[in-house]
């Protein structure tokens, strides 16, 4: 397997593992700052005039964040691997 694909897979797996691990472990019972800000606004008597059509359960939310991180990790890993190979994609023979 070319170095760029090894890096891509490796970084994607690492990022997903960190996101899922933190979400289920250390951060499982922690509220987010976004939630705290939302609660502060609601405490002021504000009612949101629009709400997201998408409602995610906690596991779905973790999975989607992991997907986002995994996609980013895969691309970043590919870039790092390609640079390490010393043959940036744009300069390879087509």
């Amino acid at each position: 397997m070319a170095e760029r694909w090894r890096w891509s897979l490796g970084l994607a797996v690492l990022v997903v593992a960190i996101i899922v691990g933190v979400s289920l472990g250390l951060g499982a019972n922690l509220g987010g700052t976004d939630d705290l800000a939302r609660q502060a606004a609601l405490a002021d008597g504000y009612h949101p005039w629009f709400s997201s059509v998408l409602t995610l359960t906690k596991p779905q939310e973790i999975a989607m964040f992991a997907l986002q991180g995994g996609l980013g990790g895969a691309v970043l890993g590919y870039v790092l691997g390609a640079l390490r190979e010393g043959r940036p994609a744009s300069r390879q023979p087509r």
Partner: protein
Amino acid sequence: MHVSEGFLPPLHAAGWALAAAPFVVHGSRVVVRQVREHPESRLLLAGAGAFTFVMSAMKLPSVTGSSSHPTGTGVGTVLFGPAVMAPLGTIVLLFQALLLAHGGITTLGANAFSMAVVGPWAGWLVYRLLRRAPHAVAVFGAVVIADLITYVVTSFQLALAYPDKVSGVPGSMERFLGIFAITQLPLAVVEGVIGVVLVRALASWSGARAEELPGLRPGSLEVAEAGEPAHHG
């Protein structure tokens, strides 16, 4: 740091969208020009966008007992200047609004203005101010400030929308900064350290000298030929 869907009054939401739009349009043109004139920089551009994707997906616990996530816009700012981060950051925010119910479409302009516009420009300013310092220090400063300022702007946006009944916007700003700032500080430092390592790796592996990165000198990115020893900044 995202302002949630529907949590800004319609006028505020429209105002912030109008404020962010020119930066996103201009940034998109800069990206197109960058790719056209320097096709070899496509990899680094993809890396900058991917780093924002990764960092903004990482909800990390902090010392305050709540969690938050880094923004990931500082590295792209160092590599390409602040303009390119407006479209790249907005794409990330749009992804999160549509697929993660995080942030929102109605608050996309406000979130883009804080994370993809002001954060990168503040980071770039620090990067320029520290240009005579060791490069790692300049990168660290840029990444940390790009992260922190995002949350300061978010606090301001919320304070404008929800002024305190007694102390007005300043009092409300203090309240929202209390929610965001202390939580964010350690996360910004972590992002700064990761940013230094990543920029160092990207710069040396691509053969670009640090002082030649477009963030400092637009259009001067050089990529080493295969097998040619890389320059180190």
